[in-house]
C-alpha cells in the first residue's frame, strides 16, 4: 500500500532531442484506481516502467509514501506488474506460478500455500491450481500474472500494461469487472495503462490522460467528459469526440467565421492565440430552427443516431433526437450548458 509521488519527473531516451515524458509533478493516492490513457507512443508505458523501476528516469524523483525510491531496483520496490502478453512460467503448475514470488523472497512452503489458496479464491483459479500453466487460455494466464502480484501481501501497487489486449472480447468484460471487484476487496493502488477509453473510464476513479509525453488532464471520468482541460481530451474521450469550432470570442458571445453569433454561458476576457468553441455532440441536436447546417450523413450507433453536418464548412457531429426525421432544412440547436472555450487548445476560464 503506498502513495506514489512524482517530483519533476521526466524521461528522455538517449539520442532523442524530445522528452518521452515531459517534466511533471503528481501524486497518486494510496489504494486509488488510476488509469493512464492515451494513444500509442504518448509515454504512458514509459511512466509505468518508471514506477515499477524497470526504467530509471533521466530527471526527477519517484516517492513511495514519501520515501525516495528512484534508485531502487524493481525487486526491492514491492510493485507487481501485469504485462500486455500474459507471462506464465510454462513448466510450473498454476500453484507453483502463484507461489513463485513468495518462494523467491524466502517464504516457507506452508506460508506460501496459504496465500496462494487465498488469492486463487479471489481470482477464481481455485479449481485449476494443480494444472500446468502452459495449457491454459490467455485470460486464465493473465489471471495468473495478476495473481502473482496479489499474492504478495506487502505489494505497494499493481501496474497493468494494457492487460486485456490479447483477451477475447467476451472475456474482457468479465476480467475487467473482476479487477474492479478485486480493487474493492484488496485496497491496493492500481495503475492501469490503456489506449481504450472504455477500459479506462470503467476501471479508474481517476484517469490520467496523456498526449505526446505530457499529462494533459487528471480527473474523474465525469470531469474528463464535462470539462476537458485540453482539446486533446475532448477529442479523445467520448465517441464521437467533442466538436471544436474556430471562432472569435468577445465577452459573452462567440462569432463564427461566417458571421453567425452564439451566446455563451460565461464571459471571457480577450483570449490569446487560436480560439475554439468546444461542444460535445450530446449538447448539440439537429433541429428545425437554429444555426443552418448542411447534412453530410447520419450514423446509427444503435442506442442513438449521430448526424454528421457541416457548419460553415467546419465538420460537426450532432445528436439526431429519437424518432425525429431528418429535417428538410436542418439546423443546429446548441445547449449553452455544454459550451466551453479553448485558447490554443487549453480550456479558458470564463466568468459567470
Amino acid at each position: 500500500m503506498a502513495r506514489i509521488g512524482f517530483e519533476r519527473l521526466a524521461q528522455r531516451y538517449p539520442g532523442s532531442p524530445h522528452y518521452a515524458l515531459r517534466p511533471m509533478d503528481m501524486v497518486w493516492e494510496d489504494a486509488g484506481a488510476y488509469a493512464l490513457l492515451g494513444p500509442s507512443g504518448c509515454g504512458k508505458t514509459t511512466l509505468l516502467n518508471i514506477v515499477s523501476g524497470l526504467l530509471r528516469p533521466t530527471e526527477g524523483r519517484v516517492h513511495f509514501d514519501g520515501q525516495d525510491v528512484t534508485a531502487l531496483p524493481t525487486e526491492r520496490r514491492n510493485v507487481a506488474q501485469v504485462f500486455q502478453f500474459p507471462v506464465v512460467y510454462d513448466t510450473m503448475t498454476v500453484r507453483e506460478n502463484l507461489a513463485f514470488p513468495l518462494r523467491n523472497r524466502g517464504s516457507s512452503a506452508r506460508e506460501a500455500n496459504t496465500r496462494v489458496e487465498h488469492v486463487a479464491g479471489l481470482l477464481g483459479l481455485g479449481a485449476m491450481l494443480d494444472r500446468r500453466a502452459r495449457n491454459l487460455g490467455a485470460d486464465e494466464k493473465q489471471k495468473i500474472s495478476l495473481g502473482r502480484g496479489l499474492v504478495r501481501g506487502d505489494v505497494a501497487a499493481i501496474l497493468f500494461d494494457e492487460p486485456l489486449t490479447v483477451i477475447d472480447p467476451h472475456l474482457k468484460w468479465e476480467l475487467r469487472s473482476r479487477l474492479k471487484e478485486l480493487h474493492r476487496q484488496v485496497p491496493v493502488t492500481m495503475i492501469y495503462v490503456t489506449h481504450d477509453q472504455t477500459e479506462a473510464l470503467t476501471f479508474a476513479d481517476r484517469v490520467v490522460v496523456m498526449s505526446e509525453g505530457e499529462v494533459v488532464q487528471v480527473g474523474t471520468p465525469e470531469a474528463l467528459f464535462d470539462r476537458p482541460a485540453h482539446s486533446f481530451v475532448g477529442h479523445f474521450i467520448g465517441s464521437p469526440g467533442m466538436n471544436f469550432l474556430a471562432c472569435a470570442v468577445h465577452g459573452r458571445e462567440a462569432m463564427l467565421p461566417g458571421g453567425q453569433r452564439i451566446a455563451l454561458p460565461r464571459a471571457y476576457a480577450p483570449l490569446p492565440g487560436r480560439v475554439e468553441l468546444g461542444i460535445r455532440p450530446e449538447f448539440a441536436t439537429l433541429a428545425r430552427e437554429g444555426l443552418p447546417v448542411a447534412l453530410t450523413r447520419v450514423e446509427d450507433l444503435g442506442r442513438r443516431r449521430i448526424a454528421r453536418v457541416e457548419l460553415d464548412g467546419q465538420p460537426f457531429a450532432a445528436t439526431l433526437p429519437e424518432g425525429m426525421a431528418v429535417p428538410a432544412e436542418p439546423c443546429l440547436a446548441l445547449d449553452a450548458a455544454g459550451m466551453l472555450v479553448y485558447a490554443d487548445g487549453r480550456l479558458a476560464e470564463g466568468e459567470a
Partner: protein
Amino acid sequence: MAKPHNDRAWFLVLPVVALVAFSALIPVMTVVNYSVQDTFGNNQFFWNGTAWFQELLDPSTDLGGRFFDALWRTLLFSGLCLLIEIPLGIAVALTLPRQGWGVAVSLVVLALPLLIPWNVVGTIWQVFGRGDIGLLGAGLQALGINYNYAQNAFDAWATVVAMDVWHWTSLVVLLCYAGLRAIPDAYYQAAKIDGAGAWAIFRAIQLPKMQRVLTIAVLLRFMDSFMIYTEPFVVTGGGPGNATTFLSIDLVKIALGQFDLGKAAAMSIVYNLIILTVCWIFFATTTRGQSEAAQ
C-alpha cells in the same frame, strides 16, 4: 472445375527416382547383398544367410567381441560429448552479449570451428598435442605432466573428446543463443518483479524456453558424435591399441583393411539401425512432449 488426370505425370518424378536410386537405394541394396554372402576374392560370392549377423551379435565370437567393444566405446564417446558440450554450450550462450557490437564478434568467433574441414580439425589437434612441437603437448610436458596421446589411452581419449568439444560446442552455443534471444523481454521483467534470482530465472524461464533448440542440439550432437570418423582417425588412428577405435573406424578397418565385405556389410547395417532407432525414439518422445504442450 475437374482436375485433368494424366498418369504420364509420373514421368516427372523419374529424375528424383534416378537420383535417389544412385545415391541411396543401390548402395544400400549392395550392402544388404554383401551382408548375406561370403567371398574368397576373385569376385566369387557364396550364399551365407544370416551367419554374419549371428556372429556379429554374439559377443563371444571374434567379430562380435570387436563390435561390442567398439559400440561401447562409441556410446561412451557420444555420452561424454553430450555431457560436456550441452551444459557448456548453455553456459556460454547465457554469457554472450544480448546487444551491441559484441554480438557480431562473438558469433563469428564461435562459428569459426564449425567452418573448418574435419580432417583439418584432426590435423590441428594432432599437431597441437604433440610433445615436441605442439602447444598443448609441449605445454603439458613443461608442467611436468607426462602427456602422450599416441601411447597413453587416457590421454588419447582426453584429446579426442577435447577436440570434439572444441569443434562442436559452438553449434550448441549458437542454437541456445537463438533460443534465448527468442524470449520476450516481458518474461525477464516479470521475473524481476517476482524477485527471481539468476538461478530461478534459468530454471523457470530460460531452460524451458530453450527446450526445443536443446532437443535439436542433443539430436545433432548425438548423431554426429556417434558416427565420428575423420578427426579421431587423423589424430589417433584408433589407437593406442584399440583404445579409440570407434564403430566407424572399426568398420573401415574390416571393410577396407581386411576386405571382409560380408562382415563389414552386416556391421554397417546394424550400425545404421542403431542410429535410426535412437533417432526415432528421440523424435517420438519429443514430438509427444510437444503435442501435449499444444493441447
